[in-house]
């Protein structure tokens, strides 16, 4: 049985059809990367999966259980679905440590000692244990994003959603965040990742879901998607990142 299953999901924003009949599933331990042009609905899809956006029709199942029908239960479901945002969204009035402990202590009502131990272990793994008592404003973008990942991980989620987590980082900080995610993937964490980092997608993904205009137009094994995309739209999308023809010293008439 798939860990997460989305069946016939439709989403409208004021009459505008943003997600059209989306169906896919994610197995336990699988890493799925969602690719597609800007505005194609990738982020919206992630937000629908943990109930930040309402959907108009369709079903979302976690462990075979429909999770999108009772809106009063979302807070329980969300404890099993970790989410990391593009803009980190750490709580500025809390230290790193307090940021991480808030969810496990207040939402999950877990034992403080146990959570503290886990928090320190996780912080150590992302190399930020010495920043434990810092406030978010005292950290760099990359550090903040690593804390945000730890904050989500400390809830022991069954699946993690990453929404363009490196999109607002300086290039040299992108790596430190992606390394953390690669490490997670290696450990068998189930993840759905929206990203624009193509090389990273190649390295981390088991499967690629390509979305364009609110529709899934292609689903393929990562290797296959990057080497032999089936649809014209996917081909065009991948070609955007090809700069060969603009290389200096190459005659523009002899386009490759």
């Amino acid at each position: 049985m798939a860990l997460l299953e989305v069946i016939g999901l439709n989403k409208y924003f004021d009459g505008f059809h943003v997600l059209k009949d989306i169906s896919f599933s994610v197995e336990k331990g699988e890493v799925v990367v969602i690719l597609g042009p800007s505005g194609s609905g990738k982020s919206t899809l992630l937000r629908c999966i943990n109930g930040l956006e309402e959907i108009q029709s369709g079903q979302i199942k976690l462990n075979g259980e429909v999770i999108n029908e009772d809106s009063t239960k979302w807070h329980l479901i969300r404890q099993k679905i970790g989410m990391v945002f593009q803009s980190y969204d750490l709580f500025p009035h809390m230290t790193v440590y307090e940021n991480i402990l808030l969810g496990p202590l207040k939402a999950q009502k877990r034992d403080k000692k146990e959570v503290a131990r886990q928090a320190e272990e996780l912080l150590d793994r992302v190399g930020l244990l010495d920043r434990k008592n810092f406030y978010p404003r005292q950290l760099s973008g990359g550090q903040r994003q690593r804390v945000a990942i730890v904050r989500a991980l400390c809830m022991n989620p069954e699946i993690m959603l990453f929404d363009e987590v490196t999109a607002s980082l300086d290039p040299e900080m992108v790596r430190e965040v992606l390394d953390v995610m690669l490490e997670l993937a290696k450990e068998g964490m189930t993840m759905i990742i929206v990203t624009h980092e193509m090389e990273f997608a190649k390295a981390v993904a088991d499967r690629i879901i390509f979305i364009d205009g609110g529709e899934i137009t292609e689903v393929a094994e990562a290797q296959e998607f990057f080497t032999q995309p089936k649809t014209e739209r996917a081909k065009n999308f991948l070609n955007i990142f090809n700069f060969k023809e603009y290389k200096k010293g190459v005659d523009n008439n002899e386009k490759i």
Partner: protein
Amino acid sequence: MDIDFILEISSLYLEAGKFTLKLAFIGIILSLLIGIFCSLVNYYKVKFLKKIVNWYIELSRNTPLLIQLFFLYYGLPKVGIKLGAFTCAVIGLAFLGGSYMAEAFRGGLEAVSKAQIEAGLSLGLTKAQVTRYIIFPQALAVSIPSIGANAIFIIKETSIVSAISLKDLMFVTKDIIGIYYKTNEALLMLVVAYLIILLPLSLLLTYVERRLRYAGFGN
């Protein structure tokens, strides 16, 4: 200027100052509670209550405190509700201050970004928990300058309660002028007494405001 006279009456001012402070303190605390309640009702768009709250805010902000006090002190007994002067003063101050505090909090609540709320929700917190641990502390920090300004405003407004026979600083001053005709001395003491209460508060507020600015909430 009669220095001996000033020394003689200073104990009266001390008493009256304590009374003014006590009244202001109770008024400010109640105003804060009313303000927080009203701003949350508005923020979460609670049906029905929201309408009442908005009526209250308009009524309170657009009528003078003196009229509100007269209504409570002289008007209500006519319909059988008799309240003591002190109770009237407290109700009047809370009624007036509550709406100003509500507006101050509203600004703070609106300053909390949607992303912060979503980050809280995505951790599995309930709406009430998000309000308590994320929205409220951030809104409070943003509102502190206006809350402080309102507190000073409420302290100054207490000078009106002398009109319903309460022995605050203003009342004592008018009394002394009436009995001894020492207008200059009495008014000087009145100004000094208010400055002693308000100046430290103003300075503290400036300091807190600067600290908050450096703390750089949000960004």
